């Protein structure tokens, strides 16, 4: 009996424990349920937020797209307007050129006495008229230059030039003018030549415009100095003067089109307002920069750099080694990097690994002949546009010659003179 009671008591205790455990479990369960519900709510909330954010993003993207489209259209319109403007300027300038020449020539021919003797007063007025018309002429030319640059139609005719020689020419050209104003024109450059692969006319124009500018803002006993310094990747040039200088507030406006202001003590407004803009554009086309240092009453220094571009590589293909070497000697002075080979097959291999600026090709080669080499060159994208100069020992057959003319490939019969070859090579490289 006692035994039974004990068991019952134990069972009772066990049930109590179970019941307690059950309660605990229930509580935990309900807590879990609560948490799950809360989690659910939060997930729901976040989802809504994400959906909302997504929608907003989509709207934004659509808006962006619309704006981009509008921008593209506006850009296109702007480009069109710009083209119309450039075209208009260029047409206008052309239409101005002929009448301008008639006025200018008419005055010139009276002034130089060809049309009969003049009284001093007539000379005086005609001289003023000539100065004015020359100014208009310069403006027309500057406008044309600028519209060509802006429309991307200006092509640099790069060739190997000696910058010191360019400076000498600028010096010669402006020395007389400077002397008349009693201004000293000086030049400073290293003893050796500075070779550069650049556009000769544009170099003259850059220096010329800067010197003209300096002449305008200098007076008696001032000094204008031309200077060049050779560097590793760039050549640095400077045109400085001891003239009136430029106000700080005006320096930023210097290279802006048509921006003209009298420098303190400056002698006039005779410029076109385009000269320095053109200088900037031309320097930049040559991979350089232009900047100014100036102090009022002390003077102005215009600096610009010109990027040193690699010398053009030329491939000479001629089965006669002596002739190939002779051609190389002919081109010695012009700073090219020259390779030679003696068969068409080798030439085609060479053009594969190196980028040549030009090929001088003999028509009569053993194995593959010159004409076949030309056909192969034409097939390849990389070589298609390399200018070729065709040489030949005897007169070409008319069928081949006609083809050359049709394809605009220049031909040069041997024997040729050094300078003739040099000129043609320069022309082809700059074209």
């Amino acid at each position, binding site marked *: 009996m006692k035994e039974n009671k004990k068991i019952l008591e134990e069972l009772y205790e066990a049930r109590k424990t179970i019941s307690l455990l059950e309660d605990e479990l229930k509580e935990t369960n309900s807590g879990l349920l609560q948490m799950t519900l809360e989690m659910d709510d939060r997930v729901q909330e976040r989802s809504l937020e994400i959906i909302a954010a997504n929608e907003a993003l989509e709207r934004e993207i659509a808006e962006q797209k619309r704006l981009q489209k509008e921008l593209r259209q506006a850009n296109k319109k702007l480009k069109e307007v710009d083209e119309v403007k450039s075209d208009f300027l260029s047409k206008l300038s*052309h239409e101005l050129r002929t009448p301008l*020449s*008639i006025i200018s*020539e008419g005055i*010139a021919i009276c002034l130089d006495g060809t049309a009969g003797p003049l009284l001093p007063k007539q000379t005086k007025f005609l001289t003023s008229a000539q100065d004015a018309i020359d100014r208009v002429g310069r403006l027309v030319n500057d406008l044309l230059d600028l519209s060509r640059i802006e429309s991307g139609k200006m092509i640099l*005719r790069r060739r190997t030039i000696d910058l010191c020689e360019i400076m000498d020419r600028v010096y010669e050209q402006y020395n007389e003018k400077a002397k008349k104003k009693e201004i000293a024109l000086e030049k400073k450059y290293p003893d050796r030549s500075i070779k550069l692969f650049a556009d000769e006319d544009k170099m003259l124009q850059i220096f010329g415009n800067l010197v003209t500018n300096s002449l305008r803002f200098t007076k008696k006993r001032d000094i204008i100095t031309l200077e060049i310094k050779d560097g590793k990747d760039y050549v640095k040039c400077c045109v400085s003067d001891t003239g009136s200088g430029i106000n700080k507030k005006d320096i930023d406006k210097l290279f802006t089109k048509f921006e003209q202001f009298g420098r303190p003590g400056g002698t006039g407004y005779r410029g076109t307002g385009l000269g320095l803009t053109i200088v900037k554009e031309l320097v930049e086309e040559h991979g350089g920069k232009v900047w100014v240092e100036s102090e009022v009453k002390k003077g102005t220094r215009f600096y610009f750099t010109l990027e040193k571009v690699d010398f053009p590589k030329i491939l000479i293909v001629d089965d006669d080694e002596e002739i190939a070497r002779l051609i190389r000697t002919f081109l010695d002075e012009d700073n090219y990097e020259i390779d030679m080979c003696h068969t068409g097959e080798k030439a085609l291999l060479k053009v594969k690994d190196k980028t040549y600026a030009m090929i001088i090709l003999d028509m009569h080669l053993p194995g593959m002949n010159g004409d076949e080499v030309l056909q192969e060159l034409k097939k390849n994208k990389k070589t298609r546009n390399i200018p070729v100069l065709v040489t030949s020992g005897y007169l070409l057959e008319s069928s081949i010659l006609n083809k050359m003319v049709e394809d605009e490939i220049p031909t040069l019969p041997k024997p040729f003179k050094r300078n003739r070859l040099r000129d043609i090579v320069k022309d082809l490289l700059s074209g």
Partner: protein
Amino acid sequence: MAKKKRILIVEDEREFAEIVQARLEGLGYEVDIAEDAYQGNKAIITEPPDLIILDLNMPVADGFTLLKRIYSDPSVDNPEVVILTGQTVDEKVREEARRYNVAEIFTKPYDRVKFVETIKTLVPV
């Protein structure tokens, strides 16, 4: 006295041509004017000049058309040619000019000192 050197100006702007004519006559040349390529062609066949001053942009036929004509005519000796034009000279024009051995290209308004020098060098008075 030696015969004067002959120059032919082919230019549709008569007034301009006359001024250039006066200038060159002043230097001692005999100068004729043709107002278009056809007149120019006729003048060249009748009496070949020593030098032609040629405008490019002319009505009817342009300057290069005239040059092509002269070059394809074996009966005419190729004269010296100087281009004097109001047109913009781009690489295409230069290329074509090279083909016809044009000595120099001047654009209007031109550098008259250089112009006269060039003419004098090509055909000494």
